């Protein structure tokens, strides 16, 4: 054992005590901010605000909580999840694998289930690298993550479109490919193209898709509350975070929004707004800049949902927010799915189980590659560092 746990245990104990003690600091201010929220004034503040944070724009007001609609007697849920074997820098052969787990669960008069995992290996030049003539980007790590997201959505849509409605598609995680913002243009286009095309196909088939985020860390709604308590408008100025923050250094200024605790939207909806099991928050438009590249009908909105065990974030395309029947179906299906798997959608849970590549399976693939190479006379061509890790000695 190389990590001396005893050496950090005392620090951890202190940290836990401090966290517990400070948990409710500023909550009175937060409760007051929620109580005093003036939506007309807020709209004006949001219209002119310059913030560095993401602000949740409510489509139907900030107080429109919706309890859980009745569970449909008959529905079908499609979920996919994927995992990857990244290209191995220490191996003489370059390839990656995407393993997709897909689950179709039908409920009603004749319940049935279809569970499948599908592995695919990618090894051709065009599968391994992206190029815009001047640059060459390897498809691995984060970039491979985008490809996986595309494949997950594409496979789910393919399955869902062959099923009798009502059908709901669930994905694990966000539908906002915000990580593409930092990628070169040709990489962003490569990932967004098929992703948006699939979202459009689902829209045309009127099949709702939702990205489910368990234990979300986002604070888009909390940021709106910060705007609502900002003192700049009281002094006739628009909310301007850059200006305000700069004054902290130059003038020792204390931002008005510092009275609010540093908590996420999950805590806000769970402990302050006290969302009831099955109920959802209002629907908000996300302000993520990558969404400017999504067609208007597919721009991602979100709501918070009490699944029965936690407050999760659910992301949906704009068209779903305008189709009340579909939105209600989606909410009821997610709550039902969560009730079947202790708080997390059952279909996603099973898709994950089918997708996950375990350590022993990773090792099995490596051994297979070694063996196949050996058949062609290529023996032990791994890097010295990798060999040193495998054959450990003292």
């Amino acid at each position, binding site marked *: 054992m190389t990590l001396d746990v005893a050496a950090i245990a005392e620090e951890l104990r202190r940290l836990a005590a401090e966290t517990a003690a400070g948990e409710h600091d500023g909550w009175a201010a937060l409760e007051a901010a929620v109580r005093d929220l003036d939506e007309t004034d807020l709209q004006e503040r949001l219209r002119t605000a310059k913030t560095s944070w993401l602000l949740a724009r409510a489509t139907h007001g900030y107080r429109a909580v919706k309890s859980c609609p009745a569970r449909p007697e008959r529905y079908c849920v499609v979920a996919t999840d994927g995992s990857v074997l990244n290209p191995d820098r220490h191996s003489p052969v370059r390839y990656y694998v995407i393993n997709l787990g897909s689950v179709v*669960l039908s409920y009603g008069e004749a319940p049935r289930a279809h569970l499948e995992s599908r592995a695919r290996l990618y090894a051709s030049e065009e599968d391994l690298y992206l190029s815009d003539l001047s640059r060459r980007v390897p498809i691995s790590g984060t970039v491979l993550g985008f490809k996986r997201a595309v494949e997950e959505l594409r496979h789910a849509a393919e399955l869902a479109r062959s099923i009798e409605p009502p059908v709901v598609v669930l994905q694990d995680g966000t539908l906002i490919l915000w990580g593409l913002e930092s990628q070169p243009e040709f990489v962003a286009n490569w990932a967004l193209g098929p992703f948006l095309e699939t979202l459009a196909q689902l829209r045309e088939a009127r099949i709702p898709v939702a990205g489910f985020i368990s234990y979300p860390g986002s604070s888009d709604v909390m940021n709106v509350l910060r705007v609502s308590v900002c003192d700049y408008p009281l002094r006739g100025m628009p909310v301007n975070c850059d200006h305000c923050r700069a004054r902290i250094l130059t003038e020792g200024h204390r931002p008005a929004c510092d009275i609010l605790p540093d908590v996420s939207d999950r805590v806000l909806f769970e402990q302050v707004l006290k969302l009831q099991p099955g109920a959802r928050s209002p629907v908000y438009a996300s302000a993520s800049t990558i969404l400017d590249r999504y067609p208007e009908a597919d721009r991602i909105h979100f709501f918070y949902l009490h699944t029965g065990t936690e407050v999760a974030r659910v992301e949906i395309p704009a068209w779903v927010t305008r189709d009340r029947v579909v939105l209600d179906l989606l909410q009821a299906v997610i709550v039902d799915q969560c009730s079947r798997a202790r708080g997390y959608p059952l279909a996603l849970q*099973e898709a994950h*189980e089918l997708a996950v590549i375990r350590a022993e399976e990773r090792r099995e693939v490596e051994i297979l590659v070694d063996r196949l190479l050996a058949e062609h006379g290529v023996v032990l061509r791994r890097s010295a560092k990798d060999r040193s890790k495998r054959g450990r000695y003292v």
Partner: protein
Amino acid sequence: MSEQAVPERLGEVIETSTVGFVAECDELHCLPPLGSLVRVNGPADEVIYAVVTYGETGSIDPGRRVVRRGSPDLRDQAIYQQNPELRHVLRSIFTAAAIAYRREGRLSYLLPPLPPPLHYSVERVLPGEAREVTDQPRYFAILAQYRGEIPADQLLAAHVRHLYELRERDRDWLERAARELARIFKHDYDRLVPLLEALDPDLA
């Protein structure tokens, strides 16, 4: 009982050894009864006969625990109706102890020379064939030495009861079986008597 033309496939071998094998059922809960006879092809065209010694149903993934799904309003078969994925994440397995093999038409009441290969099909033995294989209960000695999940006496009792019913309550065969058990346990009266009582109170 009408003779089926083709033996019914129960599942396939997922663990194998000279003394027996573990098989996973094709269908959840479709386990062969304890003590019943199954067959599997050996690697050299022989047929290996084995007696079912144990059955179990659980999670396919040993890392995932099975949790309660029912309630006062949802129980038994209705749980499977309402949770269609269960048939895909659970599995039934059974173990079987080899008692004999047939090579080139000749039946030997011995352990097979080679274990059945992994993934080979395990089939239910048709009644006519089961009657033939079990006609002379010489192989009981192999079962009496069984060491596994259940006591050997329970296995023998289950096997004899199963065969007695399969043989349409053939009293002559039951007497032969009882005599064989008496021979095996002639030095162990305390084991023999409860075993015979378990088979048929008339024989005690």
